[in-house]
């Protein structure tokens, strides 16, 4: 007997009264739980956050290390904090991709018709993304340690740098949330994001010292928040002074959230 042929038993269709509406905190937790389940059921979506950073770290360390810093071991000291930044910045786009998928599939209609705190799905998704960021960061730092990365500030410095990267990632996610609601398909969220993320991460101080770049590019690199985040996480990991970059990154994050979050929530409440 196929599943289709199973009879429906009428006596079990009991309809209990609705309980009191769920607390906002509880719905966000529930939606974060859903995000984790999605990772459990579709582990392939972790491919991007695991394989890509491993590949990048290995490739850049051994390809450019000798040429740029004399040896891979020297290069990785400055590259690794940068690769961490680049990886996490790239993964932020999945927030928008996931949101767009939910909207296109009609799942958001269900969420929006439920009597719950309406921003819950967005915040729940962000909480699920934190897990993705953590997995990627652990892998990169672990691999770095194996390859000879030695953070002078120890575990605490690395943790602080990770925390700062998370703050910036959280801020950046709001941009993709807006994109997720603007475009028609998850693929176009992906495609559009590359136009921003490629220059943002490559035209920075992650891979090379900007001093060798043409002046106009140096100007861009110096205002690029990714550069400041990279300098800040290098400083935090190696225990050198990075207070200015940390503040710069926090201010940039606050500005992005301050502008994008209200726009995103406004769009979210609007009809589709």
């Amino acid at each position, binding site marked *: 007997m196929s*599943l*289709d042929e*199973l*009879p*429906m*038993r*009428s006596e*079990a*269709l*009991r*309809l*209990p*009264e*609705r*309980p*009191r*509406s*769920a*607390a906002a905190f*509880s*719905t966000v937790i*529930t*939606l974060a*739980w*859903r995000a984790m*389940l*999605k990772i459990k*059921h*579709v582990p392939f979506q972790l491919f991007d956050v695991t394989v890509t950073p491993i590949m990048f770290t290995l490739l850049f360390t051994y390809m450019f290390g000798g040429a740029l810093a004399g040896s891979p071991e020297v290069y990785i000291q400055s590259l690794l904090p940068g690769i961490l930044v680049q990886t996490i910045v790239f993964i932020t786009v999945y927030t928008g991709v996931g949101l767009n998928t*939910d909207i296109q*599939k*009609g*799942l958001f*209609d*269900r*969420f*929006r*018709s*439920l*009597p*719950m705190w309406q921003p*819950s799905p967005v915040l729940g998704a962000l909480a699920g993304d934190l897990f993705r960021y953590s997995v990627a960061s652990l892998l990169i730092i672990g691999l770095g340690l194996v390859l000879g990365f030695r953070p002078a500030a120890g575990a605490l410095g690395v943790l602080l740098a990770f925390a700062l990267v998370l703050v910036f990632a959280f801020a950046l996610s709001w941009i993709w949330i807006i994109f997720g609601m603007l475009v028609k398909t998850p693929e176009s969220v992906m495609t559009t994001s590359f136009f921003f993320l490629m220059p943002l991460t490559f035209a920075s101080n992650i891979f090379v010292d900007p001093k060798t770049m043409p002046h106009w590019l140096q100007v861009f690199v110096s205002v690029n928040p990714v550069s400041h985040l990279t300098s800040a996480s290098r400083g935090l990991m190696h225990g050198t002074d990075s207070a200015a970059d940390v503040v710069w990154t926090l201010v940039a994050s606050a500005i992005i959230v301050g502008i994008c979050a209200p726009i995103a929530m406004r769009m979210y409440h609007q*009809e589709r």
Partner: protein
Amino acid sequence: MNTAIETVRLVKTFADKRALDELDLTIRNGSVYGLLGPNGAGKTTAIRVLTTLLKPSGGKAVVLGHDVAREPTAVRRKVSLTGQYASVDEDLTGHENLVLVSRLLGMSWGASRSRASELLGAFGLSEAASKQVRTFSGGMRRRIDIAASLVTRPEILFLDEPTTGLDPRSRNQVWDLVRQIAAEGTTVLLTTQYLEEADRLAERMAVIDNGRAIAEGTSHELKSSIGGNALRFQLADPAQRTRAQELVSRVLGDGVLPNTDPTAISVKVSSALVATEVLSALRDASILLSDFSLGAPSLDDVFFTLTGRPAAQPANSDEVGS
């Protein structure tokens, strides 16, 4: 309060289109009500306004005493929506989806898990509990989707085209389900393109066309509103259809109703005597019939009379007399 839903001159405009054009509806509590109409008539828009997913552009919509524009949360607390596309997470299992909705409605984890299992049992989906929804058949998806709307008792259940795309058996299951839900005291508002579906399920219905209700009543009332009876006959030889149609038009003046079956012709007749005249004219012209019946007009006939075009264009629409 006896009125579940009331809309007064409800308007919804999109950039280039007036999807709802002064729609007036009054739906009583505790009934199954059908919104009937072809694709693009405004049925889905009406449901999305009534479930607070869209804001009205004009007029008023009151659901269970709450204005949808001013008190959306109060409305959401009392109604459930099963949209046209399965609004469940395809990556999650059947059980997880129902736990998710139960939790979002405010149940504890424990209560959510047991309610999810209970619903899966009631919907004949127990064996699919730990399978991802993406592996479900169309009928199973529809059921899990409706189950997600019945985690708790909604005062009104909105079903947007609940059987579109389903095979006949799954469709029958959904129909049984709707009857059960209504028997439990929930008001059901369903939209459909299938006149048969509204006829079978809904006590009252509104025919929607271009964002307006062009007729309202029980299926019986709608049928008698077009007056007379319908004579339907089946041609032994489909090739004779055009000739038969011409002949009938000549006898009656007009009144040939659309029919989706290329071998069948329906005509509106004012009395049994006229029906006899039509039949003898056909016999005299040597057009053989394999079957005929005289009865109340179908909702297809109603829709055609009201709008001058058939409700749903069948795949072989070029074969259908227009």
